[in-house]
C-alpha cells in the first residue's frame, strides 16, 4: 500500500513539476509539502479514469476539480502581506473560482483557516489570522456563496507551514488555507 502511495506521489510530482503552467514559487512549495494528501488525491482521480498525463485544460466530467492540478480549485492557499488582511490582486481569480464552485454546489461546506507569521504576540496573531480568513469569506459571500457554507477559524502563528525564522518562512506562514471536507 505504501509503495503504491509513493509511486503515485512520484507520478503527480513529475506531472506538477514538468507540467503545463508555471505556478508562483510559494504555491509550489506548498504543494510539494502536501505529499501525503496529494498522493491519495491522485489515486482517486486515476481510479475514476481521469487523464493525469494529457494536455487537456480543465477537467473531465468524471473527476473532482479539487483533485485536478489544472483547475484553479487545486490552489487552496492564499498568501498575505505583512500585517495585512487584504487579498492581493494575484489571488482574486483563485478566490473567484472557489466562489463559483461553492455557489454552484450549495451543499458543499468550506473552512477557511487563517494563519500569521511568528512575529509579535500570539493572541494578536490569532486575531490577525481570523481577519484574513474573514477577508476571504467576505469575498466569497459577495460572489454568491451562502454564509452557511463558510466556516472561518484562526490558528494564528501556532501552525506554521514553514519552520524557518526569516522573511521567506514568514511569507509562507501568512496565509489562509481553504479546506474542503476530505481535502
Amino acid at each position, binding site marked *: 500500500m505504501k509503495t503504491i502511495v509513493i509511486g503515485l506521489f512520484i507520478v503527480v510530482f513529475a506531472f506538477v513539476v514538468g507540467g503545463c503552467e508555471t505556478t508562483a514559487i510559494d504555491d509550489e512549495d506548498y504543494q510539494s*509539502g502536501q505529499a501525503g494528501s496529494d498522493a491519495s488525491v491522485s489515486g482517486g482521480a486515476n481510479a475514476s479514469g481521469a487523464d493525469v498525463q494529457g494536455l487537456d485544460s480543465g477537467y473531465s466530467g468524471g473527476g473532482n476539480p479539487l483533485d485536478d492540478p489544472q483547475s484553479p480549485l487545486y490552489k487552496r492557499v492564499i498568501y498575505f502581506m505583512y500585517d495585512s488582511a487584504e487579498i492581493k490582486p494575484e489571488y482574486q481569480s483563485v478566490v473567484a473560482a472557489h466562489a463559483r464552485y461553492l455557489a454552484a454546489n450549495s451543499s458543499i461546506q468550506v473552512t477557511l483557516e487563517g494563519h500569521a507569521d511568528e512575529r509579535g504576540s500570539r493572541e494578536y496573531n490569532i486575531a490577525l489570522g481570523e481577519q484574513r480568513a474573514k477577508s476571504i469569506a467576505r469575498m466569497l459571500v459577495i460572489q454568491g456563496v451562502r454564509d452557511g457554507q463558510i466556516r472561518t477559524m484562526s490558528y494564528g502563528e501556532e*501552525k506554521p507551514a514553514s519552520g524557518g*525564522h526569516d522573511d521567506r518562512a514568514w511569507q509562507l506562514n501568512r496565509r489562509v488555507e481553504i479546506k474542503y471536507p476530505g481535502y
Partner: protein
Amino acid sequence: MYRSAIRIINLCLILIFSGSVNAQLTIEITGGAEGAVPIAIVPFVEDQGAEGVSKYVRGIIQADLERTGGFKSLALRDMLSNPVDASQIKFRNWQALAQENLVIGRVERVSAKNYIIEFRLFDVFKQQRLSGLRIPSSKSQLRRTAHKIADIIYQTITGTPGVFSTRIAYVTVAQGKNKSRKYRLQVADADGYNPQTILTSREPIMSPAWSADGSRIAYVSFEKKLSAVYIQTVSSGQRELVASYPGINGAPAWSPDGRQLALTLSKDGEPDIYILDIDSRSLRKLTRSYSIDTEPVWSPDGRSIVFTSDRGGKPQLYSVALDGGTVRRLTFEGSYNAAATLSPDGNLVAMVHRGGQGYQIGVLDRSSGFFRVLTDGGLDEAPSFAPNGSMILYATRKGSQGQLSAVSVDGRVRQRLVLDAGEVQEPAWSP
C-alpha cells in the same frame, strides 16, 4: 520492543529531572556584578547519617541568590573558618573578606529520611543576627526547604519578597513525523526544575494564566480543532471548559479575587474583551470596537483592565475601567506594543515592543511615563512579571530554538533558562 525502549527513555528522563542540582538546566547570567551583595554561606554542620544534605541545600540557596544578580556568594576555598554556632563567629574575619552577610546552619537527622534544617543569617558589620529558622524537612522536601531559606535571606536583606518558591508554566512543542506536533503545558519550579506536564495535545495550547492563589491555570486549547478556554486545577488535573463560542476564544486573564476571567471573544464579529463570571458563566461585553481588542490583564486593584487594541491603526496598549467609561491609550513609543503584563503594584507595564531591532520586551513606568527597552532578541514575546516585580520572564529565540529568558526590571541582569524540552514558549510566572 519499541515500547520498552520508550519506557527506558522515560525512566532516564525521570532520573534526570529528579537528579541533583546540576541537572538538565543551564542558567547563564549576564550583568549584575556591580552592586551585588557579598554573602558567605558557610557549609552547614551535618549530623551523622545526614551526609550530603548540606551540600545539596547550600547549593540551591547559593544558586537562587546568585541568579537574581543581586548577590555574590563567597567561594568555599576563600573561607578561613567554618563556624557552626553564633559563638564561633569572628565577625572581624568576615569583614576582612568584605562579606556583608553570613549564613551558618546545621542539618539534624531526625530519622532515616527526615531532617531539621536550621539556619541563621548575620549582618557582618553590625555583628547582629538578622534571621533564623528551624525547618523540619523530609528528604523529598529538601529542595522546597532550600528555596524557602533563600526566600527568607533575600527578603531580610533586600526588603523584597523572594520568588524562589514560585513556579512557572509554559508550553513546549515537539515535532513529530509528517508535520505532526505534540504540545505540552508544563509547570516547573521557578528555576526550571521538576517539570510536570499537566496537559498533552496534538493541537495548540496557548496563553496559560495563573489564578491569584496559584491553584488554577486558565489556558486556550485547540484540542477540539477550534479554540476554547479551560480552567484546570493544578494539583488534581481536574478541569472545566468555560468558553467555546463561535470564533476566537482566547487570552484568559484572572481577576484578583479569582471570580472572573477577562477573555477575548469574537463571537459578535470582531475580537472584543469580555468579562466572564466563572460561577454563573454570565458574560459581559467590556469593549466594543471595529478593531482587534485582545490580551486583557487586570490591574491589581481589580478596577481596570489593560489590553491590546489596534483601534488606532496598529496594536497599542490601552486601559479601560471595569465600570465602563473611557478607554485611555497607554503606549506611545513605536508602532507596535502588545501582550501587557503588570508589576504587582500595577505601576510598571512590560510588553512586546517593536522597535528598530525587531520585537523586544519593553517596560513602561506609568507614573513617570518613562519607557525602556530591556532585551535585544529580535523575536522576543510573552513577557510575564515575577510576583515580586523584580524580574520579567519571557520567550526568546536562540538560533532556531525557542527558549525562556528572564531580565531584571532595570535591565541589568539577564538569565537564560535552557529547559531540556526543545521548543519552549508562552511562559507564565505563578503568584
